[in-house]
């Protein structure tokens, strides 16, 4: 117990969710991990750092409540508190939206650090949704963070970009980096047509924190603007496990083979070399 407690105190609380490549699930991961932490009773602030192409508000279902945004805070048009949208469904969950009509140069890494320092005192966790790419938007997003979740899918292009991002994070002094493998399809892995989670971990060589199966419910959840973490769907369970691991708990990985049909099982035997 003693040991666990000291681990918890050490755990960093400003986490950037990044990937390099676009469309691999950064925003979905930020929304789900953030919502999951709030469900555990933590006070969580999500910051969308993708200036010009904001999305986190839509995934969270909070797009109609935006008054002020990150750029307004940085430029002094409003107080930090005024830009925070409280998610009424989950006590303790807040979103700072990004600006839609500005570009990345509206905010500097130094300004981001200032905003985060201000928020740090009030929240248990601050999650930063990083834009795709490695330019200023990326630099802004990582400036105030001390821990990173690197999201990738089991595809050559996404893994290549993730490797680049990991190199850049290392160069920026990040010590705690964890890998989330998104959209894994066990049926394809079994056929030998998709890299397994182990293959990806072997290549990228940073500690794994989550495997999210390819799941239609993610699309449904995004349609509805309600993160699916904690639901009975495979992705909902997988995200709930990620949340516990972020909290420092050890959770066994899910077995995604459960849902497969009898026929797949039978043919699966022959496909295994």
């Amino acid at each position, binding site marked *: 117990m003693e040991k666990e407690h000291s681990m918890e105190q050490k755990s960093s609380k400003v986490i950037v969710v990044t990937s390099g490549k676009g469309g691999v699930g950064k925003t979905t991961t930020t929304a789900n991990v953030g919502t999951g932490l709030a469900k555990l009773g933590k006070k969580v602030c999500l910051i969308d750092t993708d200036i010009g192409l904001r999305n986190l508000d839509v995934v969270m279902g909070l797009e109609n409540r935006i008054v002020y945004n990150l750029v307004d805070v940085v430029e002094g048009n409003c107080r930090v508190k005024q830009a925070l949208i409280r998610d009424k469904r989950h006590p303790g969950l807040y979103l700072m939206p990004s600006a839609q009509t500005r570009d990345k140069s509206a905010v500097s890494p130094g300004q981001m650090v200032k905003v985060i320092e201000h928020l740090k005192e009030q929240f248990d966790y601050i999650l930063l949704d990083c834009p795709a790419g490695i330019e200023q938007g990326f630099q802004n997003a990582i400036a105030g963070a001390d821990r990173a979740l690197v999201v990738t899918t089991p595809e050559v292009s996404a893994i*290549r970009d993730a490797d680049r991002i990991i190199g850049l994070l290392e160069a920026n002094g990040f010590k705690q980096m964890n890998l989330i493998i998104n959209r894994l399809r066990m049926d394809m*892995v079994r*056929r*030998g047509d*998709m890299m*397994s989670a182990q293959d990806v971990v072997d290549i990228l060589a940073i500690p794994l924190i989550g495997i999210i199966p390819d799941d239609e419910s993610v699309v449904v959840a995004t349609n509805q603007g309600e993160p699916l973490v904690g639901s009975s769907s495979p992705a909902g369970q997988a995200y709930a496990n990620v949340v516990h691991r972020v909290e420092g708990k050890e959770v066994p990985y899910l077995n995604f083979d459960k849902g497969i049909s009898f026929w797949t099982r039978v043919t699966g035997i022959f*496909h295994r*070399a």
Partner: protein
Amino acid sequence: MRHFFRRKSSCQIAKDRLKILLISDRVNCSPEVMELIKTDIAKVLSKYMKIDSENMDIQINTKGNKSGRGGKMPSLYANIPIVDVTAKDLAK
């Protein structure tokens, strides 16, 4: 059993491609630079022995060297055929 019916799996192809791709990404070494390194090595070695510079092969890979992230520190391997070791006697 699969091996009788199918060729290399696309998963294996992806892994093989990534292995090569990431090595060149990580060392940030373009093919042009590799060519320059190759000619320079050939030039230096030619002072001491006769080498087959046409068939020499140099590459950067991750074999054996266990440092850096996950033991993936790249290292330079060179395979240089020697035509005649005694061809150039330095004493002369």
